[in-house]
């Protein structure tokens, strides 16, 4: 008799255990998914808040508006090669001054010093990060891939303007390009 009671209680316990386990497994699966959901969420979050120094990835049109001559912004250009890309890659001009609203055109030089063809991709970033959403690129070599044959060189242009709404405390922006070898990924 006692044995029977024991069985009954353990059957009840098993079914309620199973229920709890199922709920907890759902949480596990959901959190695994959440980990991956953080990837697009991160992009959306950075997009909305303008964090992270990411500039626009496709060209924007220049809206010919007023130019704020009262403010002068210093824009610096730096370049960097990622691991394993033997290119010479540098800005032709290191620094430029610009008034908010004014359009500027600058050039970058790249030369493939390798013995083989390489497809390069420059990835831009603006510091301070919050300024990125005020930095508009009308044309940029970073919008496309740069295939260079062995020994080939190229001058690449960047056309941009700084938004009139750029916060008052910002006087210097640094635009940094990191150059990656994406030959394998794009083939």
């Amino acid at each position, binding site marked *: 008799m006692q044995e029977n009671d024991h069985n009954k209680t353990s059957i009840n316990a098993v079914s*309620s255990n199973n229920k709890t386990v199922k709920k907890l497994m759902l949480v596990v699966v*959901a959190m695994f998914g959440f980990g991956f959901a*953080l990837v697009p969420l991160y992009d959306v979050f950075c997009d909305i808040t303008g964090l992270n120094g990411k500039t626009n990835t496709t060209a924007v049109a220049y809206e010919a508006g007023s130019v704020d001559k009262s403010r002068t912004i210093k824009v610096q250009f730096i370049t960097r090669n990622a691991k394993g890309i033997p290119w010479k890659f540098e800005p032709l001009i290191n620094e430029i001054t610009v008034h908010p609203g004014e359009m500027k055109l600058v050039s970058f030089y790249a030369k493939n010093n390798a013995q083989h063809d390489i497809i390069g991709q420059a990835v831009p970033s603006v510091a301070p*990060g919050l300024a990125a959403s005020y930095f508009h690129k009308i044309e940029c070599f970073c919008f496309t891939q740069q295939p260079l044959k062995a020994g080939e060189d190229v001058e690449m242009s960047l056309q941009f303007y700084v938004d009139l709404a750029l916060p008052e405390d910002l006087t210097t922006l640094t635009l940094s390009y990191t150059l990656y070898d994406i030959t394998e*990924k794009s083939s």
Partner: protein
Amino acid sequence: MTTDVITQDSHDEHHDSDHDHKMTGIKRWLYTTNHKDIGTLYLWFAFIMFLTGGALAMVIRAELFQPGLQIVEPDFFNQLTTVHGLVMVFGAIMPAFTGFANWMLPMMLGAPDMALPRMNNWSFWILPFAFAILLGSFFMESGAPNFGWTFYAPLSTTYSNGSTAFFVFAVHIMGISSIMGAINIVVTIMNMRAPGMTYMKMPLFVWTFFITAYLLIAVMPVLAGVVTMLLTDTYFGTSFFDAAGGGDPVMFQHIFWFFGHPEVYIMILPAFGIVSTTIPAFSRKRLFGYSSMVYATSSIALLSFIVWAHHMFTTGMPLFGELFFMYCTMLIAVPTGVKVFNWVATMWRGSLSFETPMLFSIAFVILFTIGGFSGLMLAMTPVDFQYHDTYFVVAHFHYVLVTGSLFSLYAGAYFWLPKWTGHMYNDTLSKWHFWCSLISVNLLFFPMHFLGLAGMPRRIPDYALQFADFNKWVSIGGFAFGLSQLIFLAVVIKCIRGGEKAPAKPWDGAIGLEWTVASPAPYHTFSTPPPQSDIDNADQHEH
């Protein structure tokens, strides 16, 4: 024997509680579904891993004994620091706490076993494979992981030495093991409590493991996700963290620390549970502010989800981000302070006696608080720019993990050894263990604060000459601390083999259902639930 085994297996659920025979030899341990056996396995595994990770640390300290490169190559040094961290976090501290959970939770709740005994067996037995993979990578061509236990991309992807796959699979297995262990703990606590044991009558020990298990269930899957992304980035051409393909390396740090910060509370909340058991016992008082302890533990757990970016102040966050994470981090000092003051108030005007578990507990309160204060310093964004990636950080997290988590584990081990083995431990040897550990651990970690403030970077095998004297003392402290832990091994082996017979309740101030059963605890306990009077006596509330 054979028939018994068949009977046992033919039941859906493990309830051979009326029989008291177990298989012999290795099969007993391989097939066991008994929570005490599995607890023992976890504890021994954790101790072996602790000695393994400790051996790696000894090589690190030997290399750092003098400036210049003496013993190991820089790349191997990186492998040592990485695997030391991984082994200590996932192999020593976490399994040790799971071992405590397995041994003590059913006995504290008046339950016959854990709720899911077979999963329990599985969650333990996959662990040795995880660490065989991780440690085995030392002997492979690639070498062991060398990118730090935090495995930041692109160090672990673009710049990997080829060990990333082994590392990822090892972490996957550890994660599965932890998740199963955590699910088991939650289900046990929710469904297996003896009738009459309400949630607010559970010992605080149980509460801390309950909350920790929820943290594990929430963040271990995120860890599994982020290492999977590493795997596909490294070997299958995805670009989660690769800027060349539109990914973002800083996002790795966000996802990692979203796991990583709750993880540090996973390693300290159970420690709070242990000292909240030992301190009242040796103060001969009830725990001061039981309910506030429950709420404080819960708030620490909740806050742990919104502070992760304090590990990333130097990544170039905007000001409001830095302020948000700084203030949230500092907020954690409030519930933590509640706990520390409650322990002190428990001791206040108590009839204190200083048995070894109490010595470790008091050392825990003081030294963990030092670790908490250095954490508070690191929480301040402006000064973190100075302290980031220096030995100050190393000092901080070793104070909370070694003199915090590890000391609480020792307090708990000495406290329950009589219950586990049926013998009292050798008191003299245990005091030697405590005092040697206490002195050497401070010699080991305290000067690291000054080294860090003076600018010595972490994870580097060489250092500037002005750091030489402090590093020499730190290394001597390290060797002494390492050797002192062998005393503990001796104490445990002696205690298992023999010693003074332990009564059912060797500590006069202890309360809790585990002391109502014989010492050593019979193979099966609480096949029938304990009477209400025992449950009421075990209530930690002040009366």
